[in-house]
C-alpha cells in the first residue's frame, strides 16, 4: 500500500508512517492532556483556592517549598524510602513468582488466578482485609512470625512499622507484575533453550544467558513504571490510614507520603497552587530518575528487534 508518494525519501516515509501510527495519542494529548498540564503549571505559580480564580502570581510557592516546609522533606523522605525498598522487592518477587508459575506445576491456571486475585480487589475491601493481616494480636503475619518465636510489631498502628507494613502490602498485589513477566517468559521461543541444552548449558547458565537478557525489556518496563508509580503512591495508603488516629498522614505523620501531602494541600487545605508546585517538583524528580534509567538501559537491555534511532 503506497500511502505516500515515491518522491519522498525512504527515511522520510518511515518517519511519516511512524507519526501516522502514533497520531491517536498525539491527538488525545492535544485535546485532553496538554491543556490541564499547562494549567497546573500556571497554578503552581499562584495562590489558587479553587473557589476563586488564581491570584498573586510569583515564585512564593516554590520558595516556601524548598526553604520553609519540613513536611515537604519529610514526605519526600518517606516516599523515597518506600520506593527504594518496594521497587527492587516487587521486581524480584514478581519475577520469581512468574518463573515459578512458568514451570510445569499442576493446576497452573488455578495458581496464577489465586495470586492475581489481590490485584483485582476493589480498594475499599482491601483496606479492611489488610487490617486483618497486619493485626498485631490476631493477624496472620504475626501469627506466622510467632511460629518462629518472633513477637511481631504493631505494623499499621505503629509509627515505626507502618511503612514496612505498606511495603509488604505492595507485595501482596505482586500478581500484577507477575502477569507481565509471565507474558514475557511465554514469549521466549523454546528453541533457544533447546539449542542451549544441546550446547551443554545448565539451568543457571540458561537462566542468566537466555532468560534474563530476553526479559530485560520487560524488566525495564517494570522498573520505570515502578519508579513512576511508587513516587505517586496514594490510593492504598490514603484508604488505609485516613481512618486511623492522626488523619491523613497516619499516626505521628509516619505515613505522610508525598502524594498524600499533595492531596491534603489540594483538597483539604484548598491550596491548589501549592499542591501544583509540589506536583511539578515531583515531576522533575521522576523525570530525571527515568532519564537516568533509560540512559543506563543501553548497557543491560537487549531488544531482538531494535532499530537504531539516530
Amino acid at each position: 500500500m503506497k500511502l505516500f508518494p515515491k518522491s519522498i525519501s525512504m527515511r522520510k516515509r518511515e518517519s511519516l508512517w511512524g507519526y501516522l501510527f502514533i497520531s491517536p495519542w498525539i491527538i488525545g494529548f492535544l485535546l485532553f492532556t496538554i491543556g490541564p498540564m499547562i494549567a497546573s503549571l500556571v497554578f503552581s505559580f499562584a495562590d489558587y483556592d479553587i473557589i476563586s480564580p488564581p491570584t498573586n502570581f510569583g515564585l512564593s510557592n516554590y520558595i516556601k517549598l524548598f526553604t520553609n516546609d519540613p513536611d515537604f522533606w519529610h514526605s519526600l523522605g518517606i516516599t523515597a524510602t518506600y520506593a527504594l525498598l518496594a521497587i527492587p522487592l516487587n521486581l524480584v518477587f514478581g519475577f520469581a513468582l512468574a518463573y515459578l508459575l512458568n514451570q510445569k506445576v499442576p493446576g497452573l491456571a488455578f495458581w496464577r488466578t489465586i495470586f492475581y486475585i489481590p490485584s483485582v480487589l476493589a480498594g475499599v475491601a482491601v483496606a479492611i482485609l489488610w487490617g486483618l493481616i497486619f493485626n498485631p494480636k490476631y493477624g496472620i503475619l504475626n501469627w506466622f512470625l510467632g511460629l518462629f518465636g518472633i513477637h511481631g510489631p504493631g505494623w499499621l498502628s505503629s509509627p515505626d512499622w507502618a511503612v514496612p507494613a505498606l511495603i509488604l502490602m505492595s507485595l501482596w498485589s505482586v500478581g500484577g507484575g507477575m502477569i507481565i513477566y509471565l507474558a514475557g517468559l511465554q514469549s521466549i521461543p523454546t528453541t533457544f533453550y533447546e539449542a542451549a541444552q544441546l550446547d551443554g548449558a545448565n539451568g543457571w547458565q540458561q537462566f542468566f544467558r537466555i532468560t534474563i537478557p530476553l526479559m530485560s525489556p520487560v524488566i525495564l518496563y517494570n522498573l520505570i513504571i515502578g519508579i513512576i508509580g511508587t513516587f505517586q503512591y496514594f490510593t492504598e495508603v490514603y484508604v488505609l490510614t485516613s481512618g486511623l488516629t492522626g488523619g491523613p498522614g497516619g499516626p505521628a505523620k509516619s505515613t505522610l507520603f508525598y502524594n498524600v501531602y499533595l492531596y491534603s494541600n489540594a483538597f483539604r487545605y484548598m491550596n491548589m497552587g501549592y499542591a501544583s508546585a509540589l506536583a511539578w517538583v515531583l515531576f522533575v524528580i521522576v523525570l530525571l530518575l527515568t532519564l537516568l534509567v533509560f540512559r543506563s538501559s543501553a548497557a543491560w537491555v537487549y531488544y531482538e528487534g531494535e532499530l537504531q534511532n539516530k
Partner: protein
Amino acid sequence: MQRKRISTVLAVLMAISMVITACTPKPVVTEPVKITIFVGFGAGSDPDSQEALNTIAGEFNASHTDLQVEFMYSTWEEHTTKFSTLLAGDLVPDLAFPIGIQGIAEFYDEWIDVSPYILRDSYDTTDFYGPSLQLLNFNEKTIGLPLGVYPSVTFFNEDLFDAASVAYPPQQYGDSSWTLQKMVEIGQQLTLDENGNNAASSSFDPTKIAQWGWGGWCGPFRTVPGKFGGNPLGMSSDFKVAEMDSGGYLEGMQFLYDSIFNWHIRPSSIDEGSTFTGMDFTFESGKVAMFECFSWASYAFPNFTTGGNWNVASVPAGPYGDVVSPVNADTFAIPAHSTHPDQAWEVAKWMMEPDMQNRLCSIFGCIPSRKSLAGGWIDSMAAEYPNVDFQVFIDSIDYMDASPNNESWVPAYSKVWDATENAMSRILSGESSDVRQVMTDLQTEVQGYLDEYWAAHP
C-alpha cells in the same frame, strides 16, 4: 367524486384548525426550577439513605409544579474533592444537606447568610433548642436552621459494672459527685488484667489487660479542652494567637496520656488497632466499660447490644466544674454561587417542617432540634432499646458547646485540624511521652499557620 369532496373538506378543516391554533395566545409554560442538593458532608450517602431521600424527593416533586429537587450523592471521603470540583466547574449545587459545623467551616466563605430570609418570612424559631440556634450564628452570618443535634453522653456496659459490683454512673445532671476524677476511680476498678486484678491493685499487670474501664472520648481532640476550662479552638478570640501549650489544651492532653500510661484505664491506639479489629468503637467489643460519644453513634447501637446490656449516663464534670457535652449538628447551607438561592430556601423550609424533620432525622440518626419532637424521638428509640434511658440525650443538650463549637471555623481550618489530631496521635500511640513537648510543638506549628493566614489576609 365523493372521495375528492371528502378530502377537500378535510383539507379545509385542517387549514382552519391550524389557523385557529396559530392565532390563539399560548399559555406561557415555564420550566420548573431544579434544585440540586449535595449529600456528602456527613450522613446520607449509604444505599438505605439514598433510597429514603430519593423517595422524599419524589414526594416533593409530585406536590410541586414550579420546583423540583434532585439529590446528588458523594462519598464522605471525597466530598471536598467533589464539591470543590463542582464549584470550579460552575456546576454549583443549590443546597448542601445535611452538613455539619465542620463542613461549614471547610468552605466557610461559600455559604450565604440566611438571616434576611428568616426575617423576611418571619420564620418561627422558638421551637428550636436555643443552643442549637446559637451554633449556627457565626460572626457575621447565620448559616442554615438546625436540623438535628448530636449531643455526647457517657455510654456504659451494665454487664461489666454488674460483674465488678460497681454502681452505675448517674443519669441525672447536677450530681456533683460525678466528676472526671470519679470516672477515673471507677475506671480503674473496671480495668482488669488477665488474672482478674483491677488497675488499682498492686498485682495489676498492665501488659496483660483483658478489659478496659474507659474507651476515651470518641471525638476529635477539640472536644476535650472545654472540659478542662479551656477553649475548644485553642486560640485567642481574634484568632491571632495560638494557646495550645497551656490551659485546657495541655491539661486535656495530659489527662489522655495519664489515662493510658499511668492509670491504665484506656487502651493506647496501638492496642485499639491490634485488639479491636475493624470496630468503629472499642465499646462494641463488650470489653470496655465506659466511653463518651455523640448520639450519631446510634448506627452502631446494634453492635453495642452485641457487646452486652448497655445504658447511657450524664457527662462528668471536669476538674474546674465544667460539664461539657460536645455536640455535632446537622443543618443545610446555601452556596453563594447557587443560581437559585430563593428557591433553595423554599426547599430548605419544606425539609424543616416538623414531620419532614422527624423523618429526615430517623434517616440520618439525629435528634430533631425541635423541642416538640423530643418526646417522639425518645419513644422511637426506646422501642428498639427498651433498657436505655434516652432522656439523658435530651438533657445533655443544655450542656452542649454551642459557642464556640468544637468544629467551629478557625483560620487555615484543615491544617490546624490535622496538626491537632496529629499531636493527639503522638500521645495515643505512645510515640512521645513528653506531653509538654508535644503541645509546644503543636503551638509552634499552629502559630505558624495563623501567622501565614494573617499575612495573606491583612
